[in-house]
């Protein structure tokens, strides 16, 4: 059972239910806690583990290939924008890792309407591509040289001797 919820830690906030991409995490109205209702559809993406504010969701890797004993801990810190991992091997070896997850504050990304309007609806240029630093070229590239080869490219190559 890839992820599961510790009964003593879950406060029933529903973050895991909200974030699960596979709709596996469900809310039990009787005990007001989350649970993994569909473990065979779980991809072990660990979003429920990462998003749980109480660290009540944990993962036990798939029993079909993973012997027991290994542990994986994760803290996704969206204030410092760092994700911390601890990997404990079955033989007790411990590794700690930390990676950045974002370089800008959450909520700061510009939406489409925050970018000045343009009128070239008929052109092939996309948003901001009127600026060369966005496009990467002085103008929108089109193939310098085109051919019209219908069918086998290998045969055409043999004829031209190109490669």
């Amino acid at each position, binding site marked *: 059972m890839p992820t599961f919820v510790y009964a003593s830690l879950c406060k029933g906030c529903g973050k895991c239910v909200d974030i699960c991409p596979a709709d596996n995490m469900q809310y039990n109205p009787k005990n007001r806690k989350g649970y993994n209702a569909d473990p065979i559809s*779980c991809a072990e993406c660990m979003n429920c583990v990462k998003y749980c504010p109480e660290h009540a969701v944990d*993962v036990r890797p*798939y029993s079909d290939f993973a012997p027991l004993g290994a542990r994986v801990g994760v803290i996704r810190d969206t204030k410092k924008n760092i994700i911390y991992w601890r*990997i404990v091997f079955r033989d007790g070896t411990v590794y700690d890792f930390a990676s*950045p*997850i974002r370089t800008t504050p959450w909520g700061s990304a510009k939406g489409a*309407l925050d970018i000045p309007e343009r009128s070239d*609806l008929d052109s092939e240029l996309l948003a901001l591509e009127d600026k060369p630093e966005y496009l990467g070229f002085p103008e929108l590239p089109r193939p310098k040289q085109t051919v019209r080869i219908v069918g086998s490219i*290998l045969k055409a190559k043999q004829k031209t001797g190109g490669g």
Partner: protein
Amino acid sequence: MSLHFPTKIVDTDILVVGGGMAGCGAVFEAKYWCRSKCKVTLVEKANTEKSGAVGMGLSACNLGVFTTDPDDPKPEDFVQYVRNDLLGMVREDLVYDIARHMTSTIKLFDEWGLPIWRDPKTGKYLRTGRWQHPIHGESYKAIIAEPCRKSADEVYERVYVTHPLLDESRPNRIAGVVGFNVRDGTFYVFRAKAVIVAAGGTSLLYRPRSVGEGLGRAWYPTWASGSAYAIPLLAGAETVTMEFRLVVVRFKDAYGPVGFPYLLLKMRSTDVKGKQWEPLPDEAKAELSKIFYDFAWAKPTPTPIRTWVTIQNLKEGRGPDLMQTQERLPDEESLKVLFEDYLDMTPTQAFYWASQNIHPQKTPSELMPTEPYVQASHASPGGMWASGPSDIAPKEYIWGPNRMLTVEGLFGAGDVVGASGHKFSSGSFTEGRIAGKSAARYVLTQAKDYKPTISNDTIERYKEIVYRPLEWYHKNKPLTTTPEMPPQYTNWFEIHPNYLNWYQLLVRLQKTMDEYAAGWGMFYTTNMYLLNRGWELLKMLEEDFRFAAAASLHELLRVWEVYHRLLVGQAVVFSMMNRKESRGYYLNADYPYIDEENWHVFTHVRRDPKTGQWSFRTSPVIHIIPP
């Protein structure tokens, strides 16, 4: 259980189905051009912040910047690479079109806050291989979802789109879609002038290699249910080259990708006897060129050939191939890079090593070809047939606005659009942007005065169809003594004379596809007998959807996901039955070789939305970039 769910009708101009990378790109770009003149609505089956294939995280933008800088690749180079990798089956106009817009996409990602690795000396984005930029991508999707949500006029989450709606006064014209909310059961009818399908490709169509507890585990996320093809197919749109499928070589059981070890850490893999297979030695290329012609000499070696080598090694008792990780992990730093790569995108790979005490700096790791997937954004040319960009596409490839499928007003992006593989996450976002602008232009000009015609009868009929599995379950449940499961749980092994639950339908689909349509259980081999028989079995499975039962809204979601997968399976088998050669990640034993003379063509299948009849045609592949 009350089945009287409310109906909600949503009117919009542009509807984007699926909020993954392609959908987010489509929303952002469509809104940029629409401004206040048209309304852009997003419908997504999960939470956009962590939905789609990138919801797990990712460790690279596998398609990076193309600029005038001599160090950077040019769109032409990319077309040649993709053309070789897909054994010639490529729409060069579509591939070129994505490459020429990549720089602005990567720059937007950078501005939004995606941590892209940079060369400390030059300040330029680092590359692994020719095309990829490594990233710290745990929050990749969450970062992309933010501007998408800000751009959309409306976002509907946890709504699963089941069927397209065709216009009742105009033939072959999309008018909207229907779906349901998996939390409260509300029936949704979206009416739109243009629909951009940006849903996901197909995992779990074939029997996965995992068993028991890990049963559903696959390399491509379990939630990718093939809606990318099912929704357009139900609308009568044409597919392209669906038989090619995708089989990738991954770390055994954990399905961890191998690109990073090969490209960044320069690892090699061997068979168990120690013979090197990756990078592929010249003598092996010479041998393989008897089967794959010049494609065997292409640099890098095409993915289908690399996969073929691993399959062959397994078949002939030299497998599994082993990634010789210990040769390229000289210090703590390199080990850290390797682990962090997987923790960002496939945490299971780290579990796998930890649980079996495999220390990559000491021990090699086994590699294994996966079960087949159907998706258009990775190394395969399957997908839907889409119109090309008017300034570079051959005239045969232009019948409507850029990225419009063969149904008027229905657009595609990402895993939807076929014959243009290797877009991955960043390329899918870019294709979403292309489709977004194209749809905005279409809505503001050509389709300005269009009003969808959908009758109330149709809406009621679809509502009945969508909720039937739920009704069927509750009607038939009391017939046997098997107790009801707690809410949401599936009773996987409930034996009932009148119904099949989603799990039973899924397993039957997977068994049929595996054994008849070249799954791993048959070493990716099939023949005409198997395909014809498989086709019959899929027909019967489709008929049995009359007996589909769902105990909860969650199970109702699963039933419709399996139905979408079934449609994809039918398109794959029908394409395979008609292509009389072997090209792709499978062997048709009746036609075991590439036939450049007769079969350097695209295959197209279409399902008639009125009759449900399938039809097939081929079209020539037209190359526009010199060889």
